[in-house]
């Protein structure tokens, strides 16, 4: 009882802090200076129709590199944590329904295509590497569910992950030499605004991000799946 009252008191105190923060909120009337820059100069500088993408991939590209790294780290930590588990035993066979297998055979290529579409068009549509990568990874979930017992090689995923990660970094470095700085997207021609091949390196970078995120999430799922089998 005492414990709960203390905890409630703490939460009340936090609510008090948040109240002060909330009371400072009064909506927005227009873009602030930073956002205004992105919405005006940014259009010609980066050339991506999706402003969020231009911020994510270019202006705040270093954040995005960090983001990718976090997923990379997570996958690595999981592999490290369960390392002893997944090397030792055969995964148990699970009986998969015919329906699931057939459906997945049909759906898998479609899901892959959708995922790739999403990240390739990240500079034009509300999509991007992370979204596309997540879709790709969902294909992996489906594969795991339907094709029970088959080993999906970490090596392939690791390869994709490594190559796309290095490509991301190299594209960033190219920016130093060919354009205005690390991760500057204008190393390639900015192209026509709104076209698929536009916005310089953004589609390329986003594709690598998509592949990397897909591979990383798949790795995470894979590791967790294998531990699940071991648990039994």
């Amino acid at each position, binding site marked *: 009882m005492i414990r709960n009252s203390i905890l409630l008191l703490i939460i009340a105190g936090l609510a008090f802090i948040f109240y002060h923060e909330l009371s400072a909120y009064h*909506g927005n009337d227009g873009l602030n200076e930073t956002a205004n820059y992105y919405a005006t100069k940014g259009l010609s500088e980066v050339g991506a129709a999706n402003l969020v993408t231009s911020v994510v991939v270019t202006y705040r590209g270093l954040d995005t590199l960090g983001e990718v790294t976090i997923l990379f780290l997570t996958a690595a930590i999981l592999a490290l944590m*369960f390392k002893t588990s997944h090397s030792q035993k055969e995964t148990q066979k699970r009986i998969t329904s015919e329906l699931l297998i057939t459906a997945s055979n049909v759906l898998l290529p479609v899901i892959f295509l959708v995922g790739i579409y999403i990240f390739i068009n990240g500079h034009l549509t509300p999509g991007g590497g992370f979204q596309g990568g997540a879709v790709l990874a969902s294909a992996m979930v489906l594969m795991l569910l339907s094709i029970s017992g088959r080993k999906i090689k970490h090596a392939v995923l690791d390869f994709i992950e490594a190559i796309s990660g290095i490509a991301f970094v190299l594209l960033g470095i190219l920016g130093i030499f060919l354009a205005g700085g690390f991760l500057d997207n204008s190393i390639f021609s900015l192209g026509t605004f709104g076209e698929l091949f536009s916005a310089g390196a953004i589609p390329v970078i986003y594709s690598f991000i998509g592949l990397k995120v897909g591979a990383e999430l798949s790795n995470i799922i894979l590791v967790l799946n294998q531990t699940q089998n071991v648990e039994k």
Partner: protein
Amino acid sequence: MKYFSVEYISIFAGFILLLIGLWGIISQKNILKIIISFSIIDTSIHLILVSVGYIKNRTAPIIDGPVTRADAAQQVTDPVPQALVLTAIVIGVGITALMLSYALKLYEKNKSLEIDKYKSLKW
């Protein structure tokens, strides 16, 4: 009446969710419930951040359809908070995965998901 518009509702909901999540973290004994509380906090922060960048009667920051290149600055919402949320979501995914795998390992070691069973280190 302005407090009933969408940005106020969402930011208010965000803070309420945040408090609920924090309460969950310090009151729930079960590690999985604690992790769920963290997910609630994540969501609440995303809500708050997105609300912070919202501008009434404006659309997504994509130059497409009605939004023209020339007066984009008058038509779109702030892209920065959205970019931040995108990053925050990804980080949240990573953290959640880590928490769950830690929970798994803890369970493997001690066969319990009660957080107060893990007090061998103290003082």
